[in-house]
């Protein structure tokens, strides 16, 4: 059997194996191992899977994943998000839709120290939704904005999704972080615009909340400012060449930990919980990276990525259309399995084609992350919607209805980034040329 046919059969078997409830990372490793053994040799396959696992686990660069996850978990367990939300609420709560706007601001700032979209969503689902309920907000708006705003975790630095993309494609994580900054802020602004517009059309959706004095507002500022200070320290150090990403993750984590411990917001139980939770997430992610590397080696010997890249470039259609098609494949694949897992599976196949089409790899990373973000809130596998549903017990139908208006902003951002790629590339080109 020729290697291309083995490759196609391998992809088909992989999809079949996914349906059996096996762990996705195990399935990728097993198919990668068997496929490589068929094309090269069983001995070669055994050597390559052992080497891939060893090099992924004992990799200085990848230690950044558990560190950034730990930082987010500490912030989560220390109740940082609640204070952030309270602070934003004091500034914005008195205007129509103000609590939803405070959610967007809270998520955007919390994201500066939390790399996980699921943790961000879980935090704000338990903090912001009850508060919006108290003021009679529509469930559609309250749950929809929390589910969608949580996706910002994939785009705003320090994003675990961007770190993984950088590792798979050998792109600078610092550049990817900088590239995600403007699109992330732009998306927050678009979410805010949708909230304001929605509340203008139907004022009952987001009634006014309490008005606070300026004294109370200023007193809440430290809760908003210190995560920003830590963020500036980390990303500033990273882009200034003072830190490697691992060092930025360590220093940021230690800063958040010390702040949480000394301000009495985190006890031993909270710290233990943070460490255990970050081990679970990191191990899951690193296993996916290790086995997608094994699968990537299998795909490489089938020559499928090179053939696909060559074929895609030859297509007689505009490259934007091809790119949009690739993003659609990510979206559909991510709906079938987990979005992040599909990104690891598909990137080794499509990334060479995207680069061959003449796109900047950093821009491509942001576009793929945006696709993962959309995948987090569209059915059937919508991670963020599941998280919101589990915490708030609001039916899926209502949450999806609330998500729909905000999907417009995500799609609008995709279109904007196609037309103005400099929104992505300006900062990395300016600061890390």
């Amino acid at each position, binding site marked *: 059997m020729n290697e291309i046919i083995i490759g196609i059969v391998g992809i088909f078997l992989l999809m079949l194996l996914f349906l059996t409830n096996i762990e996705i990372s195990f399935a990728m490793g097993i198919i990668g191992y068997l496929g490589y053994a068929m094309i090269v040799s069983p001995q070669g396959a055994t050597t390559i899977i*052992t080497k891939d696992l060893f090099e992924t686990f004992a990799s200085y660069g990848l230690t950044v994943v558990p560190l950034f996850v730990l930082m987010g978990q500490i912030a989560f367990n220390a109740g940082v998000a609640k204070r952030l939300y309270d602070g934003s609420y004091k500034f914005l709560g008195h205007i129509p839709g103000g609590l939803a706007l405070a959610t967007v601001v809270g998520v955007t700032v919390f994201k500066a120290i939390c790399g996980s979209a699921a943790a961000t969503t879980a935090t704000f689902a338990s903090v912001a939704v009850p508060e919006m309920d108290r003021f009679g907000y529509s469930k559609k708006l309250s749950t929809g904005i929390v589910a969608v705003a949580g996706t910002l975790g994939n785009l705003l630095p320090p994003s675990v999704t961007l770190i993984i993309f950088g590792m798979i494609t050998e792109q600078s994580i610092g550049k990817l972080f900088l590239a995600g900054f403007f699109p992330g802020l732009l998306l927050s602004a678009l979410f805010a615009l949708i909230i304001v517009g929605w509340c203008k059309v139907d004022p009952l959706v987001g009634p006014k909340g309490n008005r606070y004095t300026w004294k109370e507002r200023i007193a809440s500022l430290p809760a908003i400012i210190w995560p920003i200070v830590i963020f500036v320290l980390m990303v500033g150090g990273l882009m200034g060449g003072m830190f490697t990403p691992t060092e930025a*993750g*360590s220093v940021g984590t230690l800063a958040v930990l010390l702040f949480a411990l000394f301000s009495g917001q985190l006890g031993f139980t909270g710290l233990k919980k943070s460490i255990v939770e970050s081990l679970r997430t990191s191990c899951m992610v690193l296993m996916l990276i290790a086995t997608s590397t094994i699968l990537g080696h299998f795909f490489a010997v089938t020559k499928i990525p090179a053939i696909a890249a060559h074929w895609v470039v030859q297509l007689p259609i505009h490259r934007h259309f091809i790119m949009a098609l690739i993003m659609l494949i990510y979206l559909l694949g991510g709906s079938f399995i987990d979005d992040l897992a599909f990104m690891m599976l598909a990137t080794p196949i499509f990334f060479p084609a995207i680069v061959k089409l003449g796109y900047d790899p950093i821009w491509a990373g942001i576009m793929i992350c945006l696709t993962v973000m959309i995948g987090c809130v569209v059915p059937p596998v919508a991670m963020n919607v599941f998280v919101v549903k589990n915490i708030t017990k609001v039916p899926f139908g209502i949450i999806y209805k609330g998500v729909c208006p905000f999907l417009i902003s995500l799609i609008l951002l995709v279109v904007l980034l196609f037309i103005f790629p400099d929104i992505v590339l300006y900062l990395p080109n300016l600061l890390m040329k």
Partner: protein
Amino acid sequence: MRWFLHLMDVVSRYTDVIAGAALVSIMLLTSFDVVLRYLGRPILGAYDMVTLGGAFVIGFAVPRTSWDKTHVSVDILVERIPERKDIFDLSTRAVAIFFFAVLAWNLTKMGTGFLKTGESTLTLALPLYPIAFALGFCCFIQCFVLLSDMVKIVFGEADHE
């Protein structure tokens, strides 16, 4: 078979403690290295220690992550045919045990190779064989964690939620 499940629960908890300790150590070591570097006294070989510590963090977290069923999986089809769920689960556990057994055996072989050739890190010349042996041990424990999943299914203690 309760004693076996209890044993695996305890063992995977202990490996998790090692992983957690390694994670905190990496964070502290790297942070101190950054601070001391600006004071003109960097920690020699911090890069090597963090690299090897990373292997401990993830490797030793593998058994507990499997025990807690935190790895991502797709249950769309299996949920539709619940009467076949046990058959699917038993088969996938068996295949996964084979995969991790191959890894455990070959990581041990890799460790033996490192021991013979004296393979080590660049700065501190730390030997690499303990890391390969440790990862092999974790994969070996992982096989037993997967076996305990099979025991749970066969003896009716599987998590069917």
